[in-house]
């Protein structure tokens, strides 16, 4: 399975996302923001960082990168896409996910080891977890406060599209403690904490982040025939 990791100017956790995908057993393909070709990858990770220096708004410029035009089309066709931190912000700006990530309520960048509860295992990126499972992965952001209007929030809850929630403390003031959400089809997931930083005993607080990457490999293995027939670029 080939997982593509996009590098925008200002991407920072791209190498870490690539390492995590590799540890999970994937072949990693590095994708460049200016190249619309996805090089036949089976899934895409939009990594954390400060794409384009967060100019204008986090993710607002990245959304218009040539590679994103292809990714948006492919995601609508079912390509699994995981947006982490800045990647989540880009997915919201690209309207693949609803809502927005705003400045942390306490106005500080915050980096800590954060407990989450996995609320939905029906996505391409969380099917290897069990429902309600509590996991520990680092959070680190300055603009990670998830907001949406009440109707959207209610809809996300009703459709089981809240993928993970902050527990034992909300690090940024996100509405309804939302840490991760998915689209209607469950192939696109945006998450504010960083699973790619919890994949090795030596460097992470746990190995819980690995589940996101093994999940997509499992999802892809289960849908190989369909994917080939569909041919998502």
């Amino acid at each position, binding site marked *: 399975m080939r997982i593509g990791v996009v590098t925008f100017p200002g991407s920072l956790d791209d190498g870490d996302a690539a390492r995590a995908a590799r540890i999970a057993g994937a072949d990693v393909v590095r994708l460049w923001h200016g190249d619309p070709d996805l090089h036949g990858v089976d899934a895409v990770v939009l990594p954390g960082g400060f794409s384009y220096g967060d100019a204008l708004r986090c993710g607002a410029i990245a959304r218009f990168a040539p590679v994103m035009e292809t990714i948006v089309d492919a995601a609508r066709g079912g390509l699994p896409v995981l947006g982490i931190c800045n990647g989540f912000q880009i997915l919201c700006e690209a309207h693949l996910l609803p809502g927005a990530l705003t400045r942390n309520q*306490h106005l500080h*960048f915050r980096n800590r080891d954060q407990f989450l509860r996995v609320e939905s295992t029906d996505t391409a990126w969380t099917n290897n977890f069990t429902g309600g499972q509590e996991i520990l992965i680092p959070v680190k952001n300055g603009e990670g406060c998830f907001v949406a209007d009440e109707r959207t929030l209610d809809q996300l809850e009703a459709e089981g599209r809240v993928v993970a929630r902050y527990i034992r403390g909300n690090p940024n003031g996100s509405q309804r403690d939302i840490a991760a959400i998915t689209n209607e089809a469950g192939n696109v997931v945006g998450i504010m904490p960083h699973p790619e930083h919890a994949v090795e005993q030596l460097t992470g*607080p746990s190995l819980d982040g690995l589940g996101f990457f093994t999940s997509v490999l499992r999802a892809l293995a289960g849908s190989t025939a369909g994917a080939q027939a569909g041919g998502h670029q």
Partner: protein
Amino acid sequence: MTTQPDTSAAPKQTGFAATDVLVNEFDGGPDTVQRASGTPEELQPHTELGLKDDEYDRIRQILGRRPTASELAMYSIMWSEHCSYKSSKVHLRQFGDKAPQGTRMLAGIGENAGVVQISDDLAVTFKVESHNHPSFVEPYQGAATGVGGIVRDILAMGARPIAVMDPLRFGAADHPDTARVLPGVVAGIGGYGNCLGLPNIGGEIVFDPTYQGNPLVNALSIGVLPVERLQHKEAAGVGNVVVLLGARTGRDGIGGVSVLASATFDEGAEQRRPSVQVGDPFMEKLLIESCLELYDAGLVAGIQDLGGAGLTCALTETAAAAGTGMRVWLERVPLREASMSPTEILASESQERMLLIVTPENLERVLAVAEKWGVWATAIGEVTPAGDDGSPGRLVITWNDHVVVDVPPGSLADDGPVYARPIREPADLILLQADKAETLPRPSTGDELRETVLRMIASPNLCDKSWVTEQYDRYVLGNTVLAQPEDSGVLRIDENTGLGVALSVDGNGRFARLDPYEGAKLALAEAYRNVGVTGAEPVAVTDCLNFGSPEDPAVMWQFAEAVRGLADGCQQLGTPVTGGNVSFYNQTGAAAIHPTPVVGVLGVFDDVARRIPMGFPAATGEGDLIFLLGETSCELSGSEWAWVTHGHLGGRPPKVDLEAERRLAMLMARASQSGHVSAAHDLSDGGLAQALVESCLRRNVGAKVALPDDGQSAFVHLFSESAGRALVAVPRGHDKAFVALAAEYGVPCAALGATSAEAVLDVRDQFTLPLDEARTAYEATLPALFGGVAELANRHGDPEHAADPTAPASPDRGDEVLVAAASGAAMESAAPVEADGIPAASVAEVKEPSPNGDAPTA
């Protein structure tokens, strides 16, 4: 010859500049060499630029005429204390003279940063530098560009920067100005380092009134490079092209090193704000990636970063290092403001710029790499030959065909003035040393000791620093094995072999005030010990020497003593000083700061998996055994206890035995190889009591201990700050082997007790302290002092810059900040506060989510 994503913008730059010849501040054009020769008597503002009369006379002598305005600016910059080390040079030579032989150093003092080989094919480069003055004037940008500057030094050596650390010193924690400076400094370090993608893995946060008007903001960076990628700054190869890479040049930072960093503060420091640079970490990230791609493609013949002293420094140093000349066309420099004069272009300290020397045939490829990353790259000059008679070449700079500079580059870079300044022991030192803390009233009963422990762990210097360190990304790049609050930052360097490094940076201004020679050694000993207790082998040193005015003989004596102490210490430990920085003039008015040598020590792991963390591991069964290593004497002078409980500073600092430190580090390295130690924590500020509390709280594991029965009182055992000590946890079954090993290395080893599943710190016959109670005391201090400032500042409008004093200055802005700070201080006693529509509950809720049990990072 300029590339930029929007290439149409490039030619406009020179177009604008050309039209400005007639509308600048000079009468009829710039001050040219020709004009200078014809107007020898014209008065020049050399004093305002920081040059002494005799220094000015020497410039005239070198040039055989008066300098042009641009030349005068360049000499004032390069001969400033900051660039020329004119007061410190005669002392710093000891680092070379006393350097231990047979070390792994590939590049040392005089380079942008020292380089140390750590395996057959890999090397690391690291250096600590000061950004004190800019950070006081403009905390956010001052601190941010401090990070940016040190990272470019690392980059210039051919390395990929892989981490930063920040030793910080502020005035009293509850002083209103600290509430202005600290949040800005922390936000600046975080804002820059986080956006650059560099983990912040450690540092220090110290409060002391001595730093009230002169906070110390030091920044350390470390990078890694394949040995063969080591870069040099020489502008070698006649005919090679001089390329300016990175951000465009603006008016920021003019006078930064000559006026700001090389003079004493007085009234009106805020008027120097324009002398502080403004950082753009996004540009620096692109600059890093472009340079690394250029190195790997072998396209760089020479490289130098532009930091303090900007283009002036980069041009003269690269040319002087090679002995060549250089011809520069200044109008080719891409500008932010087209109306800049040649003098301003040469003096600008605009950030995120590098100077490259490339061969003509590689120029197109270099420009293409810059264009890929969206970075400006402009050919601004070429390397010219040395004189026919073998004399060094000349640096000739024109601006729209006017020759504004024609100088021998070596006269700027190497031949600056050198002073053997008068030194005299401070008149008050004898009295100060006679006023010992060992005679102060002490707590004696168990209850008194318990209260003292609680008071100490809640004091600003000993309390939990998460409020600060949570604003830094410690995970990015995925190689952080240990980060603050651990004793050292530990990084994995090679994923395949497990090769890694440990880094610690320490200093103690109080000890150095009492005895600068011993104080410098103590700083070295502490950093060395911090690296040693993780199991790493300490190999090299960097230093940042923060002192008052060198024109004060008492300060100069402190400096001379500290350098001598550090050089002697490094010689004894076999760890060479690879580079560093001197920061003088840290004083406001007549009051100098405590002499503050800050020392960074680098250690190496053959396999980083054997690193030893500081927290006691979760207790299973009977728990791990706890031992105290080293010898405890009654040493309280200069201690945190004397300061916190008596506001006392006097006496002599603890004795330092570097041979004992060396044996302790060797023992820990050996023990980590055999898995004999599950946790280790060095003893320093606050002594054993602090180390016990921190080791327990790290993973919420209790400990039951009994203090050694050796004649010393319980109080001395708990609060003495004797050097050369560490607290270790040893898994049962390993204790006999460990004790034997300690004996083999001659390290005193006393059994204290064991870790416990019960979450209490129990000191037999003295007191019992539940960890919850300790945690509350330990964690509440900084949020109470600084937690409210950002929320309150937010009321003034712009949430983007609430904790960021870089917002456009308005006449009453200073007052606003003070109002916010004062309110913040008030919150200490009355939190949570309901402030202007922010419900108390929501402030508290967002500010302090419940702790998650302080999950360890490893």
